[in-house]
C-alpha cells in the first residue's frame, strides 16, 4: 500500500482533476503580461462592477456562496471576513495582500505573482471596491526579489491601463496599490506582524483583539488576505460563486494550489479541485522519486501535523478530508518524505526553523522553541534519554495555545505529530543512535 502510486489509477466517485483558476495564464505565452491577462477576459470584471456600480453586498454574497476560504493557512471564509470591515468609516482603509509565504514548503504565491499578477491585482481592486479601501499593499517575501520587481512592473502596467489610481475608469473610485518587500522574517506572514512591518517596525505580532478590521495599518481598518485568496476573486465574480463551489466539495469550495516539494519526481505547484484524492496528486507530481516508497507527508506545511503514508494514502485533499486524518490543508504546502527520511533529522530541522523564526516576544515561544530544538538536537547527537521524549511533548504542549500568535502552536505541531506517529523511530534513535532504516 505504500507503493509508488500508479498514475492511471481510477478512483470511484471522484472526478476531481487539476484545474487552473489562479494559475490560469500559466500555460499561455508571456503569462505575466497584462495583455495575456486581458486576452482571457482579465479586468473585465472590475470594468463591469464599476460601470454598473454593483452593490458590494451582492458581491460579498457571491463570495460567500463560492465557499472560498482563506488560502493563507487558517481557512477562514473570505466573504465573512470581508463583511467585518466597517462600511462607513471616515478615513483611509487599507487592504493587504499577504505574499510573504515563508513556511517551509510553500511556494505558490510566487507563481501567482510570476505568471498571473494581473489577476491578483484585479482581485485586490475588486476587494478594495467591496470594502471601500483606498490603499492596498502587497507584501512580498524578502527572498524573492525578482518577483518583487516584476510585480512593481505589473502595478505600473495596471496603472497605465487605468485600473489603478484616482477615478478608476471614470467611476469616481480611487485605489492605489503598492508592492512592499520583506527582508527575511517568516513571522511577517502573520497578519499583524505584517502590519507592523509595513509600519516600519520589527515584525512582532500584535495581541488581538483589536483585529485588523478595526485597528490595522496606522490604526486604520485593514483587511489582510493571502495572494491566492485575492487571485481567486475575479474568477468567482466572473463565473459566479456556485460555479467555483462546484469545482470543490461541500465546505471546501473551489480549487487550491498545492505546492508539492520534497521526494517527488516533479516538485511544483498543482492547482487542484478540492476533494482530489491524495493518490492522484501524488501521481500528478510524478510519484515518489527514485522509485522509493512513501514514508510520510506533511500535507499543508509544517504547521499542519505530519501524516504517515498508510493514513494519507486514502485521504482526499480538502478541509474536511484532511481534518479527518488529523491534519489540515494549511497553505497547501505538501512536503513528501520517502522511506529514506530520518524523522529525527527532519524534526530537528523544523524545530530549528521555528526557534530561529520566533519573533521572541512571548515567553513560551521564545524560550520554548529553543528548548525544543536543543532537546531534538540532543536526540540527534545521541545524548538523550527516553525521558526526553516526554519532556519534549510536555514542553511543546506548554507552548501551544499560550502565545500571542499561532507560531507557538505551529512550533508544537511537528513535535507532537512526529512523536505521535514515529515514536518508535525516536526511541530507536535514542537507544541505537540511528533511525529504524
Amino acid at each position: 500500500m505504500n507503493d509508488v502510486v500508479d498514475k492511471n489509477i481510477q478512483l470511484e466517485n471522484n472526478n476531481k482533476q487539476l484545474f487552473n483558476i489562479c494559475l490560469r495564464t500559466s500555460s499561455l505565452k508571456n503569462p505575466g503580461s497584462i495583455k495575456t491577462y486581458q486576452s482571457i477576459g482579465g479586468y473585465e470584471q472590475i470594468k463591469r462592477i464599476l460601470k454598473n456600480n454593483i452593490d458590494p453586498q451582492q458581491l460579498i454574497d457571491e463570495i460567500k456562496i463560492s465557499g472560498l476560504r482563506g488560502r493563507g493557512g487558517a481557512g477562514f471564509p473570505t466573504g465573512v471576513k470581508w463583511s467585518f470591515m466597517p462600511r462607513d468609516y471616515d478615513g483611509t482603509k487599507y487592504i493587504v495582500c499577504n505574499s510573504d509565504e515563508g513556511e517551509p514548503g510553500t511556494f505558490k504565491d510566487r507563481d501567482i505573482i510570476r505568471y498571473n499578477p494581473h489577476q491578483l491585482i484585479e482581485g485586490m481592486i475588486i476587494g478594495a471596491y467591496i470594502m471601500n479601501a483606498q490603499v492596498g499593499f502587497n507584501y512580498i517575501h524578502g527572498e524573492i526579489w525578482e518577483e518583487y520587481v516584476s510585480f512593481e512592473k505589473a502595478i505600473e502596467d495596471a496603472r497605465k491601463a487605468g485600473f489603478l489610481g484616482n477615478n478608476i475608469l471614470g467611476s469616481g473610485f480611487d485605489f492605489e496599490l503598492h508592492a512592499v518587500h520583506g527582508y527575511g522574517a517568516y513571522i511577517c506572514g502573520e497578519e499583524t506582524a505584517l502590519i507592523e512591518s509595513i509600519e516600519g517596525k520589527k515584525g512582532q505580532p500584535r495581541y488581538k483583539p483589536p483585529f485588523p478590521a478595526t485597528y490595522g495599518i496606522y490604526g486604520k481598518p485593514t483587511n489582510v488576505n493571502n495572494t491566492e485568496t485575492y487571485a481567486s476573486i475575479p474568477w468567482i465574480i466572473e463565473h459566479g460563486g456556485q460555479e467555483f463551489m462546484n469545482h470543490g466539495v461541500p465546505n471546501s469550495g473551489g480549487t487550491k494550489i498545492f505546492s508539492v516539494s520534497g521526494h517527488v519526481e516533479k516538485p511544483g505547484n498543482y492547482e487542484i479541485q478540492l476533494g482530489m484524492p491524495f493518490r492522484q496528486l501524488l501521481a500528478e507530481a510524478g510519484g515518489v522519486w527514485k522509485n522509493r516508497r512513501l514514508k510520510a507527508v506533511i500535507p499543508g506545511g509544517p504547521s499542519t501535523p505530519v501524516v504517515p503514508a498508510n493514513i494519507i494514502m486514502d485521504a482526499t485533499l480538502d478541509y474536511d478530508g484532511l481534518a479527518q486524518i488529523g491534519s489540515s490543508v494549511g497553505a497547501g504546502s505538501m512536503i513528501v518524505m520517502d522511506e529514506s527520511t530520518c524523522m529525527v533529522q527532519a524534526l530537528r530541522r523544523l524545530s530549528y526553523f521555528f526557534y530561529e523564526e520566533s519573533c521572541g516576544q512571548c515567553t513560551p515561544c521564545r524560550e520554548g522553541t529553543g528548548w525544543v530544538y536543543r532537546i531534538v538536537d540532543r536526540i540527534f547527537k545521541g545524548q538523550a534519554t527516553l525521558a526526553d521524549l516526554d519532556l519534549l511533548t510536555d514542553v511543546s504542549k506548554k507552548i501551544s495555545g499560550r502565545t500571542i500568535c499561532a507560531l507557538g502552536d505551529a512550533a508544537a505541531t511537528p513535535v507532537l505529530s512526529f512523536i505521535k506517529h514515529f515514536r518508535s523511530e525516536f526511541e530507536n534513535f535514542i537507544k541505537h543512535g540511528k533511525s529504524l532504516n
Partner: protein
Amino acid sequence: MVKIKINGKTFKAPEKSTIIQVADDNGIEIPRFCYHKKLSIAANCRMCLVEVKNFPKPLPACATQVNEGMEIFTKSKQTKDCQQSVMEFLLINHPLDCPICDQGGECDLQDTAMAYGSPKSRYQEEKRVVLNKNLGPLVSTDLNRCIQCSRCVRFLKEVGGMQELGLIGRGEHAEISAYVEKSVDSEISGNIIDLCPVGALTSKPFRYSARTWEMVRKSTISPHDSLGSHLEAHVKDGNVMRVLPKENEDINECWISDRDRFSYIGINSEDRVKTPLIKTGSNFKPISWDEAFHTLERVFHPSLNKFKEDDVVIFSSNQTTLEEAYLLEKLAGYVGTKQVKFDAANNPSLIANPSLNGMIGDVESFENIILLGSQLRNENPLLLQRLRKMENAGKNINIINTVDFDLQLIVANKIIQPIKDFQKTFEHIHKILSTKVAKKENSTEKNIANLLSKKTLLLVGEDIYTNPAFMNLTDVINQLIDLTSMKIGCLPTGSNTVGLQQMFGNYVNHIDEKKYQASISLNLELEDIKDKSLFERVLKKSKFNVGVTPFLNKNSKQFDLILPSTTHFENEGTFVNLESRVQSFSQAISPKFESKPLWKILRVLGNFIDCPDFTFESCSEIKEKAVKKLSKNQLKRFNLINQQVKPHTKDFCLKDINNSDALVRRSTALQNTKRLRSEK
C-alpha cells in the same frame, strides 16, 4: 458597569477595563511581568494567563477586556499550569544566583517564582549569555537576567519621549541595547531601574552597596523642582543609599526625575563645609559654632549696630522652606533691613503668585497647551511627561519660545523668535480673534488663534515671567484672557518659589546695586543666580559677607564667615509646590559633620541677637505660624508688582537640569551623564 465573576465571586467593573485591572482593584492577585499600569500593553510575558469560562485557550489578564457575565479563574488547574510553565520558561535562561544579584530580595521574578513556580528545573541545556552594555553613569546592566518584558523600552519611548533603548536581534537572541555607544540620557531614565522586574537594570551608583532589608525608608519631598515629587530615601548607617519614587498619582504618579533620584550622591561631596569658617587674611580658619554665633552677634545685634533699612541684604534660595523663611523675615525686621531677596536666584520678580493655578492633573484636562518660554525638559520633566500623554491623546501642544528646545513630543504649532517679538505675536493673535472678519490668512498665529476656541492653558515659564520684557506682554495676554476662555498658569522652578511668594505676597526681588554694610547668602551659589556679575559686584562692595552653605566652591572666598548648613536630606521643613499644595518633610538622615539645618541656625542666631518671640522648640511649631501667613489667591490675570526693574541683557538664561542647585551639581553620577542638549 459590567458584572463578572472571579473565582466564583461576583464583581462589578467599569466597561472596557481589563481583567488585571479588576483583579488589582479588588485585591485578587494575578502575577505579571510585562504589564505596567502606566505603559502600553504588550501582553508578551504570558505570566498573567488565566482560565476564562467558554474560552478554549487561557487569556492574558493584562490585555483581555471584561465582558458581562465573564467567569475568570485565577487559581484553577489550567491557570496554575500556565503560571508554572511560564515561570519555568522564564527561568531556563535566567541565572539562578539570586544571592549575588543586586535585585535579590526585591525581585519580582524571585518572588513570583517562589509563589507560582515549580521547585525543580528540567532544563539541562546551556543558558543564554548576553554581553552587558554601558548605558552611562546611571543605569547598570546585567543582561543575562533580562526577561525581555520590554518595560524599559516602552517607558523610554512612551513616557520618556525618546526611544533610547531597543530590543535588538530576534527571538531568543533579542537583547536590550542602546544605539551603538550611546547611553540613556533622558531626564527621567532612572525609572527603568524601578520598572525592570528583575536585576537586569539596576542603579549604577547604588550597585552592591546595600540589601533592601538593611535600609530604613524615609519619606521626603523633592527639593529640585516645583512639582514636589514624593520621594523615599533609603538609609543605612546614617547615609542615604538611594532615592526611589513614592507613588502619588496626583503629583509624580510613580515616577521621579533622574535629578531627584541621584542628587543624594552630592551629600557626601568633598566640598562639604565641616565646621564654621572665618576668613583670616586670604585663608579660612575653622571655628566653633559658638564663636561663629558670637561673630554674628557682634555684627547684627541691634544694640551694637543700628542698620538703616537697606544696609543689610539677604539672599535666599528658592529652596528655602516656609519655616526658614518665616524666621528669616522676623530676623530681618528685627535687624532693620528691608532687603530680603527670597528668591534671589531668579531676580527680578514681576508678577504675584506665579503658580499653576490648578492641580497638576488638571493640566491634562485641557485641549491645548501653549508653552510660553519654558524649557520644561530641564525645569520640570515630570510635568512634561504629562504633556506627552496629552499629545498621545491627540491634544495640541504649542510652543512660543526664544530657543527651539526639543521637548521630545510632537508640537502642533511653534513660534521661535527673540523675546522682543513676543508682544507682536500675541497682538497678532488678539487681532485675528477680535476682528470678526475671517481673514484668509495662513500663519502659525492663525492656527494658535483657532485653537483658543477650545479649552486652552497658557503656561508661562520662569524665564519669561521673570524677564522685564514680560511687562510689555501682560496687557495683551490679559486681553486674550478676557476675549477667550484661555486660562493661565506659571511654571516656577524652585521647590518653594510658590510658598515664598504666597508668604510674602508682593516682595520685591530686584537687587539694587549699592554698597551694603553686610550681606547674608543662604544656600546659594553663584551658579544659581541669573545675574551673576551683579551678585558678585554687590558682595565685593559689601563690608561683611556671611555665607550659609553646605558646600565650598571657588566663589566661597568672597565670604568673611561661612556657616555649614545641611543638604535637603538632613533638613526638615515645608514646601509649597506649583499647584499650591503644602507639603512637609522630615529629616532622612542626621546632619553631616558639624552642619546644621538652616532653620536651626536662624533660630540660634535669633537668640544670640536677642530677637523677641524667638523661642520655638521645633520645626513644626514654626510651621504652624508660617502656614498661617500663606495667601492663596489665584492668578486670573497677570498683574505687575514691580515696574521699576532694569531690563535684562540676555533673552534666556539657560540652566541645565543637572546644574540646578548645589546638591545636584555635586552628584558625580549626574554630572557624568551625556546630556542630550549640547548648547550650554
